[in-house]
């Protein structure tokens, strides 16, 4: 087994960048902060590719099976000889795959931001936060200990909080960042309890050990965790469900998704990085990481499946009605993550039945590229028209040819049109669903059609719809508010075009990666093939949906409004995001605040604080009484001294004889 120690540098470089830029960036390095961040990440990216090449093609495979390699291990907190929190780095197919995804998407975002964020006052801070985020995500991926996962998980939460609230003078951004933080934090509570349950029964926090213990049916740990039950479900189900709750929070699964659309308040490249390609897949990655354990428990897997499928459908319906382009993309992300989740849920561990697992990881891989491309494309558009609303756009295809082509490619990819990347991964998911669960297959198929519809609704609304000159006019009107220097830029500088071109190439190309040979649930290669007969239905549905979208939105007409009014209540409900936010507000404001929060606050103020205040006041009063003794006069002290001696003498002589 060769040495993978250099992997350590992949997360460490962004960390160093974060520290340097965070401490000295604004004062000394504001000019070169972007280049510095990008250069350090470029090194990380190259190292990731080197690691991927070494692992996948040189020495990761032993007898046709990909091995788990622990590149580095350090016992950090030892509670007892058996239970310790270690810091380690694990290398296996999914972690290497994620390394490549995270570093390359992050690199693209870094490069894109050089143009997009140019002239921002807190430019260096922005790059510091980006580096922190990349570091946390890379750490999360490589963690070999579930507690270590949890730490990086929280770091990811913090850095996303910082990035969403980057425009901290915008109240909506502040509210969005708080919402994201609180909602994911609430989910993380479940994650923590899940970790504690698994750790308690498993007797270890090491992921490899946990998997080994819980997957052998005869081990003492497995017998004890399945034997214990709470509210009618075994502790294994509870532990895994709570673990999944944490994952669902980060991955914006229904009903913990409410933070994701609001998180679009952050700068658009950040949305591309966090809310499309990396952070939100952390939940999928967590389930995949613990998948052998999940596969031992039918109930937990069913929860994963149905939550995933429900989110996929739910988000796709909402995405059809939104008018803010970043919100459409956010809901589409949620929908695609739902795809990955249910693909994991229907999968079995190992062999042919592990298709769902492989498909889920494949979709994660391809989705990262085309979704970040979509976001960066949207970023270019927003950079140009200075608005997120569809009604301010239209007819941009002549003004932004490169963005137009890139966006079209990404839309085709997400719609699952061959030969673009999304087609391959989506086919695998649909095939797996078809074999395992017909209801899920139906939902998936319908969602796929909806996906094509709303993506092309977006595409036509941005790039066609109106006439070009009108947009040009709007552009000039809008142009003078902040980015004065870049007004006549067309699509922005080359640093903004280059990532689009590279990612567009990826969105076309990554579907041809022989993924099933590389990343599978048990490390063995899986034979897959695209069944042409099977592909007809989803592709035909997608094409129909695209034609429908073209009919509605390619030219300005009122067909879409008619259909919207025909759906009536459903349309309004979807437009209002099915009132989930309102339900949350109702629960928090009307139930939790008055009935739980306020009594607790009262108790805190009056009982807990009251007791402490009483102590303090009593002490103060007593000291007020006796401070006269400290007169500063030596002779008084002498009198006390002799008085004390006299009293003691009397005591000793006459009382304690």
């Amino acid at each position: 087994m060769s040495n993978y120690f250099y992997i350590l540098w992949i997360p460490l470089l962004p960390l160093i960048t974060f520290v340097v830029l965070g401490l000295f960036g604004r004062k000394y390095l504001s000019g070169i902060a972007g280049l510095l961040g990008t250069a350090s990440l470029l090194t990380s990216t190259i190292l990731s590719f080197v690691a991927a090449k070494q692992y996948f093609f040189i020495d990761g495979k032993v007898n046709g099976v990909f091995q788990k390699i622990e590149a580095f291990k350090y016992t950090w907190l030892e509670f007892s000889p058996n239970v310790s929190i270690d810091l380690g780095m694990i290398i296996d197919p999914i972690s290497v795959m994620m390394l490549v995804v995270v570093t390359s998407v992050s690199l693209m975002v870094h490069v894109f931001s050089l143009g997009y964020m140019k002239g921002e006052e807190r430019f260096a801070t922005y790059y510091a936060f980006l580096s922190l985020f990349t570091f946390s995500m890379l750490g999360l991926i490589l963690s070999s200990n579930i507690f270590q996962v949890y730490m990086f998980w929280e770091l990811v939460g913090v850095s996303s909080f910082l990035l969403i609230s980057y425009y901290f003078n915008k109240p909506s951004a502040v509210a969005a960042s708080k919402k994201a933080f609180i909602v994911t934090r609430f989910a993380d509570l479940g994650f923590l309890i899940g970790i504690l349950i698994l750790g308690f029964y498993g007797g270890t926090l090491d992921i490899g050990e946990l998997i080994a213990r819980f997957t052998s049916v005869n081990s003492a740990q497995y017998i004890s965790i399945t034997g214990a039950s709470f509210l009618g479900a075994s502790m294994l189900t509870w532990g895994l469900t709570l673990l999944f709750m944490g994952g669902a929070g980060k991955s914006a699964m229904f009903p913990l998704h409410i933070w994701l659309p609001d998180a679009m308040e952050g700068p658009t490249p950040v949305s591309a990085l966090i809310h499309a390609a990396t952070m939100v897949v952390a939940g999928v990655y967590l389930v995949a990481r613990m998948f052998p354990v999940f596969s031992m428990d039918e109930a937990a897997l069913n929860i994963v499946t149905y939550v995933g499928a429900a989110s996929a459908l739910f988000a796709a319906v909402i995405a059809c009605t939104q008018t803010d382009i970043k919100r459409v993309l956010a809901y589409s992300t949620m929908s695609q993550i739902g795809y990955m989740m249910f693909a994991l849920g229907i999968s079995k561990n190992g062999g042919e039945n592990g298709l769902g697992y492989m498909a889920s990881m494949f979709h994660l891989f391809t989705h990262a590229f085309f979704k970040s491309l979509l976001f960066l494309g949207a970023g270019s558009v927003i950079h140009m028209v200075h608005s997120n609303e569809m009604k301010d756009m239209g007819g941009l295809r002549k003004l932004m040819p490169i963005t137009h082509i890139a966006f079209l490619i990404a839309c085709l990819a997400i719609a699952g049109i061959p030969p673009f990347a999304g087609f391959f991964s989506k086919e695998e998911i649909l095939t797996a669903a078809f074999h395992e669960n017909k209801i899920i297959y139906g939902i998936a198929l319908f969602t796929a059609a909806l996906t094509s519809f709303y993506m092309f609704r977006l595409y036509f609304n941005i790039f066609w719809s109106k006439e070009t000159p009108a947009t040009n006019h709007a552009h000039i009107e809008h142009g003078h508010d902040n980015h004065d220097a870049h007004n006549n830029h067309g699509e922005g500088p080359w640093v903004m075009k280059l990532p689009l071109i590279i990612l567009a190439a990826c969105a076309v190309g990554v579907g041809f990666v022989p993924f099933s040979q590389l990343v599978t649930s048990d490390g063995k290669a899986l034979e897959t093939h695209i069944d042409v007969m099977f592909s007809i239905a989803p592709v035909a549905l997608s094409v129909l949906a695209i034609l429908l979208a073209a009919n509605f939105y390619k030219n300005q007409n009122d067909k879409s409004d008619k259909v919207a009014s025909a759906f009536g209540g459903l349309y309004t409900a979807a437009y209002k995001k099915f009132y989930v936010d309102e339900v949350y507000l109702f629960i928090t404001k009307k139930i939790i605040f008055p009935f739980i929060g306020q009594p607790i606050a009262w108790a805190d103020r009056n009982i807990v604080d009251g007791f402490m205040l009483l102590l303090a006041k009593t002490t103060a009063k007593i000291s007020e009484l006796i401070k006269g003794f400290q007169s500063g006069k030596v002779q008084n002290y002498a009198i006390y001294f002799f008085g004390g001696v006299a009293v003691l003498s009397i005591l000793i002589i006459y009382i304690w004889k």
Partner: protein
Amino acid sequence: MQEIPLTQLLFVSTFLFFIGMYGLFTRRNLITMLMSIELMLNSVNINFVAFNKYLFPNNLDGLFFTLFIITIAAAEAAVAIAIIINLYRSHNSIDVEDATEMKY
């Protein structure tokens, strides 16, 4: 020659001790207070010597104690006078009433 009874010696030493104590409490001049403390020390010395002579004539423990106390009293007087001189330098007075900063 008739021996002086122990009680009389103890009476003298008690008398000296309370004179010293009275001086310590009433005088405001630090030098006088120091002298009062010396008086108290000497009364203790008398006690030691007297008890040694009357109760344990064959031992010398009390005498040794007395010698030690005299030595230490000399050292203590030196330290005390050094403190007093410093106090005088900073306060221009050696009256204890003028040095009452160290209170609450």
